[in-house]
């Protein structure tokens, strides 16, 4: 099945939803595509289980879902995009099989991937990511375990730990890899959104009241599976027992589609890593291709919504649905709010950035690529043998060749190589490849008769 639209938006989190609504309101024929069954993205993920208590993100998510529903934009949810061709042709797999969507312009609002910093034992069953834990809690109202250790960096620590308590779980401890000083340094920027700051402080207060041990400047040294759960050794030498670990080091922008389409990228540690090079409205180096939201650099939900709206307006302007004067007026009125939201989100994102010590801490036996069982030692050996680019390192070790397509190990592999090569810019980015997510063969090939397979003419004898 093929559909056509002037503008396609991939991703229906706050950035994509606001982009689509702004463009549609200006008269653009727009279609929004998302893998999930409903809009909301990660931050406003629609709960599968409705609870009586209405949290701010559920209220905001419902508001966003209903606004998008009535906006007039076409919605294509439950679609897994596996390829985007220039110009633009979007190939997706839906409930009814393969679909293509053709659009003159494309806005990517594909968010982020959890940044994984390996440590000995991180692949032990029961260890999950902080962002994964938020999905469990928000969407499924499910606890990671009976007694969970929460560790890593950044604001999700308190959010997840408080969420576990709220759902009736036990938090063994919170290990904040950052020293307390990091929070103090960030405070002036966090004060730009007092409501969110207050909510964050509320989570920490809840944890204190519940008597959860909170250790700033400590982290996980090793996780071992034991008979009745997990044994955690901390960097400061403490031992913690639990049956689940939620650990995270922030988020990194998803660049699969911009890489595939050959857009220019730059490395910006403060934005979460490699990001597409953009102008003020989210335009990439590829004509007609825009990016907004955390996928353009981690800035949080509030900034994502504003950047999305701006991108939607810019697309409407380029498609001739908005004149320059009206576009300029709308855009300039949003500048202050976007800057303020970005300041807050940026400070939050900066707190999650891993330190060089996090990478140096793990030894030769530590698994880096869990899909292909590649250890730190094997990666070091390939670098010693002369692998100088990230693509060559992938070829020689198979790191990044498994089902996660490098999303889990990419950060750690690049960080290790960067140590030798003199920086992340020198290391480069893995070449973008289709499919951008694994595609079941059965979904793609369908029930075709042999004579209908378009086999090219025979090779020469």
């Amino acid at each position, binding site marked *: 099945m093929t559909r056509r639209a002037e503008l396609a938006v991939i991703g229906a989190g706050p950035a994509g939803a606001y982009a689509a609504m702004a463009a549609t309101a200006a008269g653009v024929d727009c279609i929004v595509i998302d893998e999930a069954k409903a809009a909301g993205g990660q931050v406003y993920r629609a709960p599968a289980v409705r609870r009586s208590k209405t949290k701010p993100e559920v209220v905001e998510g419902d508001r966003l879902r209903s606004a998008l529903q009535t906006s007039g934009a076409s919605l294509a949810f439950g679609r897994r995009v596996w390829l985007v061709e220039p110009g633009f042709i979007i190939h997706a797999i839906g409930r009814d099989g393969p679909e293509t969507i053709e659009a003159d312009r494309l806005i990517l609002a594909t968010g982020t991937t959890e940044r994984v910093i390996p440590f000995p034992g991180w692949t032990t069953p029961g260890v999950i990511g902080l962002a994964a834990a938020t999905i469990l809690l928000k969407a499924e109202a499910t606890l990671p375990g009976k007694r969970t250790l929460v560790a890593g960096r950044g604001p999700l620590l308190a959010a997840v730990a408080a969420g576990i308590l709220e759902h009736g779980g036990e938090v063994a401890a919170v290990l904040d890899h950052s020293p307390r000083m990091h929070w103090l340094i960030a405070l002036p920027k966090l004060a730009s959104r007092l409501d969110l700051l207050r909510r964050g402080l509320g989570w920490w207060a809840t944890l204190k009241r519940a008597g959860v041990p909170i250790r700033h400047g400590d982290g996980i040294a090793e996780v071992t599976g034991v008979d009745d759960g997990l044994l955690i050794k901390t960097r400061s030498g403490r031992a913690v027992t639990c049956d689940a670990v939620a650990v995270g080091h922030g988020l990194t922008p998803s660049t699969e589609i911009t890489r595939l389409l050959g857009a220019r990228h730059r490395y910006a540690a403060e934005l979460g890593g490699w990001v597409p090079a953009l102008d003020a409205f989210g335009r990439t180096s590829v004509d007609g291709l825009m990016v907004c939201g955390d996928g353009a650099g981690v800035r949080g939900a509030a900034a994502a919504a504003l950047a999305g709206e701006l991108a939607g307006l810019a697309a409407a302007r380029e498609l001739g649905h908005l004149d320059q004067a009206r576009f300029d007026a709308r855009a300039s009125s949003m500048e202050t709010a976007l800057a303020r939201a970005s300041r807050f989100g940026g400070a939050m994102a900066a707190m999650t950035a891993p330190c060089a010590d996090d990478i140096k801490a793990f030894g030769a036996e530590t698994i880096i690529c869990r899909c292909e069982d590649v250890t730190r030692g094997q990666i070091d050996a390939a670098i010693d043998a002369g692998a100088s680019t990230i*693509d060559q390192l992938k070829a020689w070790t198979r790191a990044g060749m498994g089902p996660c397509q490098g999303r889990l190990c990419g950060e750690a592999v690049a960080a290790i190589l960067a140590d030798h090569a003199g920086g992340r810019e020198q290391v480069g980015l893995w070449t973008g490849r289709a499919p951008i997510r694994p595609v079941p*063969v059965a979904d793609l090939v369908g029930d075709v008769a*042999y004579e209908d*397979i378009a*086999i*090219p*003419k025979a*090779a020469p004898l």
Partner: protein
Amino acid sequence: MSRFDAVVVGGGIMGCTTALWLARGGMCTALIERDAVARSASGVNAGTLTLHMTRAALIPYALKGWQLWATARDWLGHDVGVVAAPGLCLAFTKAEAALLEERSAVRREQGAPIKIIAPDRARKIEPGLSGALKLAAHSPIDGHVPAYLTGLAYKKALVEAGCTILEQQPVTALDRLSAGFRIHTGETIVDTKRLVLAGGVWLEPLLALLNVLLPVKTLINQLVVLERLPPVIQSVVTIASGLLSLKQFTNGTVLIGGGWQGKGDRESGETAIIPENLIGNVQLAAHAVPALKRGRILRSWLGFEAETADAMPIIGSVPGMADIFVIGSVHSGYTSAPYMGRLLADHILGLDPAMPLFPMERLLTGHAEGVVA
């Protein structure tokens, strides 16, 4: 400035093997590669060591090449992970069956141990094959190499042989000196007595730097890999038309190829999948081995294959230009590559090559004046 006895431009398997034997033969040798060693066609191809897909006239070379791959540990000094397996070439229609019989007979005449077998016999050898099979051809000599790892083995061998390796350095200019050549890469300048061009699809622009006009077409071959599956096939599976190559590596991943085309060009190095071709290639693979429908497609990529006007190799001296040599454009040349590199090295070292080379005179379309030595 360094002055070498021989410089090989192009670090694929042909160039690497030539450089290796020149260095081992006592020449002060350098290898210059525009990307990294064996990262272009030689690193991203399907790694199929097959006679069913080799052009008939090249079968004697492929048989020698197969032997060299199988014994890499002995002569290269490093394991390249070769897996020897039988090769099964399939036919699903009457027309394909006729093609299979005809092509197998010609290849057999050239020395390939290929036998036509009935479908039930083929399914006994490879139970995963489709029940729709009409006819099959069997070769006990077939197999595969993880192509992405061969560069690592070759790089070690070249270093051990004393060959200088310059990577990430595309050649930008070639000057003829009174004796020998000066090679410019933008980063360095290298002088050499002898020049070997082994640049794959970039042979045409390299030869053009010497005012030799030889068209080299760029094929943009597609490969698709499925995630690890429980064992589904052990043979290398191909079809009569040559449009499928299918194998399962020891790690469980399944690689689907066969020369279906993508988009791209050699100047920018950029490539893109043609979705219909990706789907068609996988449909064909899943038709041959239905269990593949249980897998997921993880990744696809495209590699450049060089093809001359007659789709036959060019290996030997450049006419009228002493001390310039060319090697490349071997259809499905990965199997034969280590042998062909050895042949050219022997020719350059003044030894008698054990099999005929492939002179390029037949293909020259132009030859500027004043460059002939």
